[in-house]
């Protein structure tokens, strides 16, 4: 879910000046103090683990060994992990299908289809996943279905995450340049054809990174299944812990497994947008926090809007949409990284160049004149999009 383009360890942030000798000294002292405080907190936690009041030493190897040995892995963690991954995988496939179905349903020209899709999507987004899981679990059990816990976990996750994907499809189409739709209509396609053949395929590419981010949410939410007795990783680690009375240790192991899986998926989600941007004209940038403001008619990707990619995907016309952060007109993207250029206007990239050139050539100096001409011919070869990066 991390925002890929914001660098995390900005040593030269714009928020503060590059520190001088005294500033560096102060930062060094603050660093030491912060590390000492952090170490003290860690030591306190370990002391509590070592010697809880009226409890046994939680750091004892006797307790950690059954949580880590081969039997624990083969009999508990790995079967639990398999159940977790199985549910997450099926739920992701299902929610993408659900999302595309109802996301497109919300965009179709027929009003009743739109309304029905809108009601279903908004309902599924508003109801807590756990409630849906409990409901389906009881319902499936009454219906005499086999494995009610598994199917209720999958269905609960499909309904919620599918509705999030539906919104992503919708905002992906909404973020496309108008020219895509207009060009499709000009070619004689109907509104539905333009939607299905031009806009939705691009929206799906734009949506993929966010869908991977959603995969992290799905994987995390499968742990809810343990509340309805689904034997996932969390449930298995609880079972193991209650056998050897080392539940703290088994929970820590399960937490580490969850963390590693989710963290790897998050990295994948950060890497994907740059690849997907080649296939679409919509910004392929995932949300920082997955759900978009509910009932928001414009429903735009806040981060993608705040940021502008300098390149023009598919070599199209310059973007005229979403240059501003919605509602705020902020148009500078990645302000922590980009250098501000005096007099540069994104809308009129030529103006600044002209202005600079006015100062340079001196009348009567042939060399300067010649240089300027060369400059000009050189400039003309470069498309605008590349020049602004120079």
């Amino acid at each position, binding site marked *: 879910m991390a925002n890929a383009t914001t660098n995390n360890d900005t040593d030269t942030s714009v928020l503060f000046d590059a520190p001088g000798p005294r500033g560096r000294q102060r930062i060094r002292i603050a660093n030491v103090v912060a590390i000492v405080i952090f170490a003290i907190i860690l030591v306190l936690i370990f002391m*509590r683990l070592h010697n809880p009041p009226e409890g046994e030493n939680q750091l004892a190897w006797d307790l950690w060994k059954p949580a880590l040995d081969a039997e624990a892995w083969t009999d508990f963690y790995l079967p639990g992990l398999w159940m977790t991954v199985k549910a997450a995988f099926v739920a992701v496939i299902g929610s993408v299908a659900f999302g595309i179905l109802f996301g497109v349903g919300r965009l179709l020209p027929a009003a009743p289809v739109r309304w029905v899709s809108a009601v279903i999507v908004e309902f599924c987004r*508003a*109801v807590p996943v756990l409630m849906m899981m409990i409901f389906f679990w009881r319902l499936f059990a009454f219906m005499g279905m086999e494995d009610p816990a598994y199917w209720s976990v999958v269905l609960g996750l499909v309904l919620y995450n599918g509705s999030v994907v539906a919104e992503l499809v919708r905002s992906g189409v909404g973020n496309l340049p108008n020219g895509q739709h207009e060009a499709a209509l000009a070619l004689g396609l109907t509104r539905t054809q333009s939607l299905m053949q031009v806009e939705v395929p691009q929206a799906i590419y734009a949506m993929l990174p966010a869908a991977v981010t959603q995969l992290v949410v799905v*994987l995390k939410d499968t*742990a809810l299944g343990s509340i309805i007795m689904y034997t996932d990783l969390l449930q298995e680690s*609880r079972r193991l812990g209650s056998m050897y009375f080392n539940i703290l240790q088994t929970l*820590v192991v399960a937490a580490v497994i969850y963390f590693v899986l989710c963290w790897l998926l998050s990295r994948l989600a950060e890497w994907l947008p740059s690849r997907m941007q080649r296939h679409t004209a919509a910004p392929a940038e995932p949300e920082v926090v997955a759900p978009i*403001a509910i009932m928001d008619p414009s429903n735009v990707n806040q981060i993608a809007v*705040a940021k502008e990619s300098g390149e023009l995907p598919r070599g199209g016309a310059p973007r005229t949409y979403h240059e501003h952060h919605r509602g*705020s007109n902020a148009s500078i993207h990645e302000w922590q990284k980009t250098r501000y250029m005096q007099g540069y206007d994104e809308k009129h990239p030529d103006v600044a160049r002209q202005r600079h050139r006015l100062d340079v050539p001196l009348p009567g100096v042939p060399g300067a004149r010649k240089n300027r001409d060369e400059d000009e011919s050189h400039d003309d070869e470069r498309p605008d999009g590349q020049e602004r990066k120079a």
Partner: protein
Amino acid sequence: MNAFAQLFSQYDIPGAFLVNIELTLWSALFSTILGVMLLLMRISPISSLRRIARGYVELFKNMPLTIIMVFMVLGVYAQLKLSFSTTFATNFFWLAITGLSLYTAAFVCESLRSGINTVPIGQAEAARALGLNFWQAATQVILPQAIRGSVAPLGNTFIALLKNSTVAAAASVATETSTMMSEMIEYHADLIVPIFLTFAFGYVILIIPFGALTTYLSNKLAVRR
């Protein structure tokens, strides 16, 4: 229909929703405080603080809430003997709030950081040009604009928090909605659909006005540039 109406007198459904709202409000308060602290650490000139805050956010963002809640009760309370109160119900209630706050703080920090990305670079440069130091620039120039720019992601975080408060069931909070719904269905299996719809619409009624308010505020408070 009569049996359904009887359920309302038998079970305190508004009371269950109230428990969830209480959980949400307390957690929202604590996670906002912690989230702002994390944000300040994350953008500060001190590199160790930045790393600690980043580690915290990564850890809790990639951790299922359920395991945090279970850990609160079975690890922190049962094994480490940390408790808030000798009464079971109060103790579990506050353990659930602790878990929710720790989890949500990471998302509050991320929402605010996305708001900072909407503040133009000129604002920070102007603040530095005026001779403000990091703390002054952050608290007087950047953060006020960043918070206004992050209303929508923050609103989404708190909507998610309200829905996540049902996971308090994993921390043995027995009076909240999901536990009550499970119990009601168990004893009144014939009314399963109306019972579910009652609770579902309860959440729809709570969340839709909040979402509309968030959208309104994010437009109203946005800095016009």
